């Protein structure tokens, strides 16, 4: 990652994230059919397609405003709990981020955004949720790890939700039967972390 994120291409990030979610929508929905209500992929695709449709408008805004607007858009379009969760993440990230963040400012804003997700979902680490990816990524960011390593941390963290028992969300209704399946929100979080890391890495 570059020392400053000032020059990052918001439009390119939106395009890349929307393409990733679109390509994995069926996979995410399959994961959600196993332990949730089977709509995560479609819901995320609806939200990110809405961001894609506004990519130019988002790119015209300063970074903090673009993040807040993107978060609000997800809240209004996703239609499931992942709307407020991913939306809150982006809105908090925008709120905490200076217009031209350096790496430490980005890591600090990311940490606060993860806290906002935990508050929104009334959840914590180890409950088989997206937080189980976001916390390790937060720590890797704070430790100054390079992009490729952060993406790998996210993938491994999503994989680590497989043996967990779900304690929040619809999957928690299944109790022990949620064990053995990857958490869909962790998978989508890891996919997005990898996409953002690779996009920023390629433009560094």
């Amino acid at each position, binding site marked *: 990652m570059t020392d400053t994120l000032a020059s990052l291409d918001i439009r390119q990030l939106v395009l890349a994230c929307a393409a990733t979610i679109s390509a994995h929508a069926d996979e995410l929905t399959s994961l959600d059919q196993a332990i949730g*209500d089977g*709509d995560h992929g*479609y*819901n995320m695709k*609806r939200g990110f397609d809405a961001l894609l449709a506004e990519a130019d408008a988002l790119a015209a805004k300063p970074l903090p405003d673009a993040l807040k607007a993107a978060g*609000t858009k997800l*809240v*209004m*379009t*996703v*239609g*499931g*709990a992942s*709307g*407020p*969760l991913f*939306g*809150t993440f982006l809105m908090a990230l925008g709120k905490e981020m200076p217009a031209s963040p350096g790496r430490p400012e980005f890591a600090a804003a990311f940490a606060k955004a993860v806290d906002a997700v935990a508050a*929104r*979902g009334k959840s914590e680490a180890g409950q088989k949720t997206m937080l189980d990816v976001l916390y390790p990524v937060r720590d890797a960011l704070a430790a100054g790890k390079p992009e490729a390593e952060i993406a790998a941390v996210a993938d491994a963290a999503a994989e680590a939700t497989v043996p967990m028992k779900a304690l929040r*969300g*619809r999957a928690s209704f299944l109790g022990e039967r949620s064990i053995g399946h990857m958490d869909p929100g962790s998978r989508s979080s890891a996919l997005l972390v990898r996409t953002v890391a690779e996009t920023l890495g390629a433009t560094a």
Partner: protein
Amino acid sequence: MNVGIVIVSHSPKVAEGTADMVRQMVGDEVPLAWCGGNPEGGLGTSVGDIMEAIGRAWSEAGVAILVDLGGAETNSEMAVEMIGEPRAKKIVVCNAPIVEGAVMAATEASGGATLREVVATAHELSPA
């Protein structure tokens, strides 16, 4: 003015049917609104629809929201936050079964109970 009731379900049919039951049992003395379905009309909930429903059932005495499953709760809490103050502090998302909660809360509200009393009545249906 009586406390308003908002019913938020993943299914518009469940939400509308619950509202029908409230109307039949409690009458028209309680501001009542419902919504259900995601922004495309499939099963799910929509923050925008919830915000509109709160507006339709608005009462200066407050609004109690009854929800079905997780996403309906999270999206309702998000809607309350986006509505913001001064209204937000007069809106409560109840922890109660949606049908029984809506009927009991509306019954309590129709007698002129405060928001706190209405919410407490709904919560009695979900022992911690």
